């Protein structure tokens, strides 16, 4: 789950990394009370989870005389279709130089990867493409308590030594918070020291519970309902609903729909175990999206009980047609239950997909 900027900065601040002075407001009026304690020049940053926030108009400059007016303007905006509910008002920093620092997981080495560059800011991805050597790298196993001093020296190169402690503090945040990504971009030098001007933190969804996070905000209402049932669910923009077991098989079904010229409206992975009630809930959830005109069910596995699946599909009682591919135990029984009710049951996943694409054309 992505953590918003102000929350990430709070975590960094607690670890000893200097963050800009600022205040979080939920209405423009709240700013009035804070004005006396704020510096003359401020920056207002919409707390929305969208990439390219600055370019989309989510970051505005102001001074004391027009800060409240500017806040009203920002709260009235939509940033890439996301309403602005919270705004972080911060001091405008006197920046000497911008750097880039991030810590992530390297799948290839199964280790932690630290990246540092002398040029920070919004262009870092361009730097990565055009001059990969400008981004210095160090990797270490997660069982290390600290980043060894030689790695810090290698990462910094000719950058000021005062940046060094931030690397270790960010590593400690990464470890403590079960992070998939901890990023400071830009990390800036100023007359009053090194400051994290922006911050990004992504926490492993599998660790939310032990991190004390009860609601995964990255999910939409339907996705959250799906999660409650133990499904993984994603919404797309087509007309065919897809239910499968296993992420790979479900994705492959989606790919086949595209191959035959159709488009999926959503897909749901029921995961392991397909009892009647689970299947019923899955079918109802997928069919609740208005654009779904037909549903493909593709369930395969040695331990999937086909009679349970069939009962689940029938008891869902939905209006859209359901085309079913079933393989597993009690296959005959399941097929009979469905064929008695008039469901189409082609033999292979390709045939199932073809029938659904034809129906929705």
């Amino acid at each position, binding site marked *: 789950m992505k953590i918003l900027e102000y929350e990430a900065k709070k975590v960094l601040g607690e670890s000893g990394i200097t963050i800009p002075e600022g205040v979080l407001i939920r209405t423009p009026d709240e700013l009035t009370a804070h004005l006396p304690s704020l510096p003359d020049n401020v920056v207002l940053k919409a707390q929305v989870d969208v990439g390219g926030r600055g370019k989309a108009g989510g970051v505005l400059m102001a001074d004391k005389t027009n800060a409240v007016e500017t806040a009203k303007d920002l709260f009235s905006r939509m940033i890439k279709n996301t309403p602005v509910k919270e705004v972080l008002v911060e001091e405008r920093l006197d920046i000497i130089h911008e750097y880039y620092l991030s810590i992530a*997981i390297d*799948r*290839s080495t*199964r*280790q*932690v990867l630290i990246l540092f560059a002398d040029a920070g800011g919004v262009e870092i*991805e361009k730097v990565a493409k055009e001059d990969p050597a400008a981004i210095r790298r160090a990797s270490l*196993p*997660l*069982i290390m308590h600290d980043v060894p001093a030689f790695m810090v020296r290698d990462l910094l190169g000719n950058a000021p030594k005062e940046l060094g402690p931030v690397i270790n503090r960010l590593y400690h945040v990464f*470890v403590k918070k*079960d992070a*998939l990504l901890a990023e400071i971009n830009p990390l800036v030098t100023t007359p009053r020291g090194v400051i994290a001007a922006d911050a990004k933190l992504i926490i*492993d*969804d*599998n*660790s939310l*519970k*032990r991190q004390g996070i009860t609601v995964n905000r990255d999910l939409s209402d339907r996705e959250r309902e799906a999660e409650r049932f133990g499904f*993984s669910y*994603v919404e*797309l923009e087509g007309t065919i609903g897809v239910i*499968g*077991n*296993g*992420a*790979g*098989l*479900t*994705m*492959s079904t*989606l*790919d*086949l*729909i*595209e*191959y035959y010229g159709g488009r*999926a409206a959503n897909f749901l*992975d029921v995961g392991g175990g397909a009892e009647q009630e689970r299947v019923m809930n899955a079918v109802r959830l997928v069919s609740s999206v208005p654009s779904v005109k037909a549903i493909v069910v593709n369930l*395969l*596995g*040695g*331990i999937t009980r086909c009679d349970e699946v069939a009962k689940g599909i029938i008891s869902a009682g939905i209006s859209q047609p359901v085309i079913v591919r079933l*393989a*597993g135990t009690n296959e005959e029984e399941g097929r009979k239950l469905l064929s008695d009710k008039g469901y189409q049951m082609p033999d*292979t*996943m*390709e045939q199932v997909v073809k029938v659904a694409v034809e129906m929705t054309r």
Partner: protein
Amino acid sequence: MIFGDKKTGVIVTGATGHQGAFHIALMNEYAKNVGGTGVVAGVTPGKAGQEVHGVPVYNSVRDALNEHDASAGVLFVPGFAAGDSIMECAGAGLSLVVAITEHIPVHDTMRAISYAKMNDCNVIGPNCPGLLSPGEIKLGIMPAQLFSRGHIGVISRSGTLTYEIVDELTRAGLGQSTVVGIGGDPVIGQTFTDVLAKFSDDQKTKAVVIIGEVGGALEEEGAKATDIPIVAYIAGISAPPEKRMGHAGAIIEGGEGDARSKIERLKAMGVQVASRPSEVPRLIHHLI
């Protein structure tokens, strides 16, 4: 055939849980049919003295190894305890751990894999269906009835999609030497590269099918490092960017890990890439 044979003794952790007990029965049914050793002991802390389908249960892996010969462990413990269980198996001296468990915190996986490596223990998974060498051994939850004995190796990040493609191979008369589900998580113990190196040394394996997904670059790394003939299938070509597809491993990373560019890179290396699962057998026939 790689990672074990008929003689391999197996310990199951999380043995008394619903999943653990169910699959102990299926693994031992398979072992009985092929004349193999199968699961010799189960482990659940606090449940020593119980039996699961005739298999004795111990409090720890060490206790189990005091009474039985085994070299492989299969994990059915819940996500929060799985990192610990991998380390317990490795520390007690098992040389192979198959972690079926899903939803393990990725930091736990990274620590457990580091610790296992220091103890010369290979980890398959987590979040995987295990492995099956037809006629020899089944470690995990793969449905044995779809498999047949032969000379094709299979390595997959998926579970059910593996069964789909194994079914296609079997119907086409292409039996398998070993089928390995390496797991769908972002960090896994054995990667395509590791397993391909083992297949490369295996006399029985003549060609390998790799079944990949969007995300990461493990498929390309594997293809680059091996000389054995490969056919690939990559799922997720229609995956929207930045959407989670069930596996954390399927998060698309900065446009680099999307399925289409992955397929292009594999083709540029001369790898045959199937556009649908049903194309895999035909491409394999071309190779051998």
